[in-house]
């Protein structure tokens, strides 16, 4: 948090003529004025994309890709970022998650998490993950060591908890960057 000259990898070309995940989510057209403004901050764009790539690397051993996508989807849904949540839904379905499972989670499990009446025999590990997503997304200030112990009790390692925490926190960053860019786009289109 003092002056650090530059990120750790040389910045690859990241011009306004390439579209990354944030561009796509914000509806930025290649070569548009707003895309040019965004890609003038090329290191931010580059490391944001590489963060996403690292967080959703299928080879990450500590938390399954489907568990990570469930976590990202729920963080977006709880934040009312419906377009982003839908994007994670599409990825979840490619990992084999059934749309009915998503519907069931949304209709039942999530309500049950909120009511505290969940039958935790169904999928204790996924439910623990989703509960942690809710805590970090909505009320991170209420986190206590016991919440991490709950994750550990379902077999999630320290490396898994670090990855999960980074992933949830990343989604809360990602959806705010997209929200700001969408507002900027709306302001430019209205001008």
């Amino acid at each position, binding site marked *: 948090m003092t002056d650090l000259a530059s990120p750790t990898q040389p910045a690859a070309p990241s011009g306004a003529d390439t579209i990354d995940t944030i561009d796509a989510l914000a509806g930025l057209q290649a070569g548009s004025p707003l895309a040019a403004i965004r890609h003038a*901050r090329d290191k931010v764009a580059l*490391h944001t994309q590489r963060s996403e790539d*690292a967080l959703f690397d299928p080879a990450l051993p500590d938390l399954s890709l489907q568990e990570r996508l469930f976590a990202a989807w729920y963080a977006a849904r709880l934040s009312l970022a419906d377009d982003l949540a839908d994007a994670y839904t599409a990825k979840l379905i490619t990992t084999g998650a059934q749309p009915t499972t998503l519907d069931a989670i949304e209709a039942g499990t999530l309500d049950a998490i909120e009511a505290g009446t969940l039958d935790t025999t169904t999928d204790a590990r996924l439910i623990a993950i989703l509960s942690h997503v809710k805590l970090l997304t909505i009320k*991170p200030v209420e986190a206590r060591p016991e919440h991490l112990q709950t994750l550990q009790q379902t077999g999630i390692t320290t490396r898994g908890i670090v990855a999960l*925490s980074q992933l949830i926190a990343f989604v809360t960053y990602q959806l705010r960057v997209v929200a700001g860019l969408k507002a900027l786009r709306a302001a430019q289109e209205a001008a």
Partner: protein
Amino acid sequence: MSQVNTSASPVDPLNGFTFDTLGWRAWLDTVSLAGATPEQIAVLEESHPHAKTSDYYLLLVQQEEILWQRSGVFNAIMYAPGGLPRAERELASTVVSRVNGCVYCASVHAQRFGQLAKRTDAIEQVFEDPSSAGTTERERAIIRYAIELTDHPEGVDAAAIKRLEANGLTHAEILDLTHAIAIFAWANRLMLTLGEPVFPHAE
């Protein structure tokens, strides 16, 4: 910089927030330097000058590639030249930390604002009540946007952008501001949920 808050004060005018230098303790096992891989050491050295003695970085380096990229995002947002003045990035980061309740993050970036702006009045107001804080119209507009994007990202719209434009911010500066707010959604959540601040008088 003035020390405006002390724990001895019977009435805490800053709601528990402080300009003091705090520590931070992890709730999970950190990587020991002796056991770290060369890749982990390299990521620590790139992340922060004191990362090798910081519980925070020694925990996050359990996933070194994720930390590597996160540090790239963070440093590019907070330290890049040009665009939104760095003091205003620190102001926004402090507002977000205040709204999210991250006393540790707020203390670090309150100090940084003081170093850059050579004053602390705006931050004292943020600690007291962010909803009315700001010493100028421009500061109030920045703070309002930081609160809105933190609490209700789904409600940020063209009108929010127009209010910033009316106070002289360009779209490039508004993007920088958006980044400075969003990266503290990320940073606050790590600091708040993987460990806790250590207060100097407690040890």
